[in-house]
């Protein structure tokens, strides 16, 4: 008789999927966008990204060690992902101290005050970004124009984003078709020749990351597709109605942070709904709010706000939108 047997309840095998693997999968999916941003923005992108990643991990370590006195969990990769996403949402020429402040807000306020990974209601990276946007509006909206690999970043040529160009122009009574002459073409938008934050620069690189996430089953299609679909639908309606003052759907999808937001920010596990029906509603809400903020709001870009607003509705959605149970509806063949 062997007295050394383990006795536990089934299942006796595990899929070997771990939180670390999922987080590092997201990091891998972000690599194309990171490489693209380094190509377009140069050293500034590297410095900003490194600063954000290191400070997020250090803040998480310090808070867990000295304030919460809990086991250290920086190896789970979630602080790394938060740092990366924060950096990708910032302009590449932003001063390093601002990046550090943003990281402190992201990790310290948005994540750890709620109990750390799994408990935060709002996307930490976006909270950090929006805090910086409100606190340092001029630095946060002065975008370097992509100029190939540049070594310095403080003196880079700066310019407005295509969204800001359109927004200002329409306000001043110019028509969209005239304004379109001044901004990159759709193909250039796809490849990444536009001013903006680090991660927004190449739509193509983000889409490669999206395909990787789907292939690895890290995310499902529901949230990204519904964000992009609802934004496209809403802006198409307005565009058909009056193309002079409203830009078309292709422009709205490829410019600004829509793809970065839809693929990487809105799909954050902790702050998004947990069943496909609710995911689609959540995604549509983000798409719609983004369009509303962009077109009628004070800011040229609205993805961050749209995601944070919809984050607030997630607990409600999880409580009231239920998957259709097996056998709930009588199906007799």
């Amino acid at each position, binding site marked *: *008789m*062997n*007295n*050394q*047997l*383990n*006795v*536990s*309840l*089934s*299942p*006796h*095998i*595990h*899929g*070997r*999927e*771990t*939180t670390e*693997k*999922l987080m590092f999968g997201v990091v891998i999916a972000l690599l194309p966008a990171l490489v693209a941003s380094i190509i377009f923005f140069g050293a500034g992108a590297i410095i900003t990204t490194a600063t954000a990643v290191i400070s997020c991990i250090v803040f998480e370590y310090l808070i867990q060690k000295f304030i919460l006195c809990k086991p250290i*969990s920086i190896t*789970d990769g*979630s602080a790394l992902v938060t740092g990366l996403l924060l950096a990708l949402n910032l302009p590449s020429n932003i001063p390093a101290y601002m990046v550090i402040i943003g990281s402190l807000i992201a990790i310290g306020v948005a994540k750890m005050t709620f109990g*750390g*990974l*799994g*408990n935060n209601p709002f996307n930490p990276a976006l909270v950090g970004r929006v805090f910086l946007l409100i606190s340092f509006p001029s630095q946060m909206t002065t975008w370097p124009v992509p100029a190939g690999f540049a070594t310095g970043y403080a003196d880079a040529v700066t310019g407005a984003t295509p969204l800001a160009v359109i927004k200002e122009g329409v306000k001043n009574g110019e028509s969209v078709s005239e304004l379109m002459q001044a901004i990159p073409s759709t193909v250039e938008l796809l490849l990444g020749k536009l001013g903006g934050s680090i991660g927004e620069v190449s739509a193509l690189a983000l889409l490669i990351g999206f395909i990787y996430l789907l292939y690895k089953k890290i995310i*499902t299609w529901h949230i990204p597709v519904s964000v992009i679909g609802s934004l496209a639908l809403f802006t198409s309606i307005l565009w058909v109605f009056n193309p002079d003052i409203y830009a078309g759907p292709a422009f709205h999808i490829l410019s600004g942070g829509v793809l970065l937001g839809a693929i990487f920010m809105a799909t954050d*596990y*902790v702050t*998004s*709904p*947990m*069943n496909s029906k609710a995911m689609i509603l959540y995604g549509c809400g983000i798409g719609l709010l983004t369009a509303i903020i962009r077109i009628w709001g004070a800011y040229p870009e609205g993805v961050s706000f749209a995601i944070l607003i919809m984050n607030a509705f997630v607990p409600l959605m*999880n409580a009231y939108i*239920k*998957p*259709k*149970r*097996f*056998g*709930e*509806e*009588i*199906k*007799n*063949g």
Partner: protein
Amino acid sequence: MMIRYKTSNTFPKGGIHPPEYKLTQNVPIKPLPIPKSVMIPISQHIGAVAAPVVAKGDYVKTGQLIASANGFVSSNIHSSVSGIVSKIDTIIDASGYRQNAIFIDVQGDEWVDSIDRSADVISKIELAPEQIIEKCKESGIVGLGGATFPSHVKLAVPKDKKCNTIIINGVECEPYLTSDHRLMLEKGEEILIGIAILMKALDVEKAMVGIESNKPDAVEHLKELAKRFPGISIHSLTVKYPQGAEKQLIKTLTGREVPSGKLPIDVNAVVHNVATAYAVYEAVQKNKPLIERVVTVTGKSLPAPGNYLVRIGSPVSSLIEAAGGLPDDTGKIVSGGPMMGKALQNTGVPASKGMSGIVLFRASESTRVEKIACIRCAKCVTACPMNLEPHLLATLSMKAMFERAEDEKVTDCIECGSCSYTCPAGRPSLDYIRLGKSTVMKMIRERNIK
């Protein structure tokens, strides 16, 4: 009523793909040598415990009734060996609970005369439907897929309900197990006759056999044989766990969804395992009660994993011995498959009617992964074949919020383990859900009494 059949060959939502490790799929079934003594539990089925009809010192023959069914939902138990009843005493069975067992010291192998032990395959079904059901009851046939529900109860369809399709479960979706696979290859004709017997008993024209496509040899073999059996169709199904679960298999094959809290008969279906069909054949055509079954003895560390025809009551240690002996680094022994099987406390447990396999795990494979915080990734929601929210049910059960767990349909859980398997945070959701489910079932029973 018009019946439409779906063409998809797996159930639509949920499910997982664990590694298969079908190590013994090419190992033919071998009879396990009869042990020196056997312990035959008197409860090897769902329902009332059988009442022993032998006493200490009695001589019993192989196939002789030793404990008789105690009520309608209960089952007869027969001696699997010949010899002297040495005692009736408590043992710990595969489920980990104590129960009574009849201990028999083996003397030779003298069978009851009425059992036809010849190798002839008898295909002509002579018994009438009621006689078939009575024969299944007499022979102690229970569902051999693992649930061990007495088969004669399933065959006695209530008057207000009607079965129009028999579903035969040859899915064997659990990793490692190959006992049904081997049985289909080696006893295919007998299984098909068994299905024809079930069809006659239920007065049904149509039987569908579901086999996962990772057993192409079994699919081909049965398809070839089924040409001679009108009404029996063989279906190759896309591999996905838990396809062998009753409700999922009905959904796959017929598109019908068994409503919450109802039985397959409520959608005009009855499900039987292939091994049960074989046992029915043996009972009806050969007059042989259920005294042996095929058990897969497997594990990555075992020297000679195989499929064995085992006399009920043989100790698990004798099965492991036949497969090359217990490896030193064994950390866990599971009765059944790794997804839904039960971990054994020791190897002295006897083989019972519901034991489809013995799976050995090395010490390094036998511990759970470390549990960390839920990151709300919703993988458990995606994996749940019943479209429940396992993370929520686990939390509600953990916090003893059982009324809400009832509203969230905790009782629909089939305990397949897909949620725990898939969880990246290593959370043992099913442990908590089981607690919630059993508590809610108790609450419902108490409410019904009032």
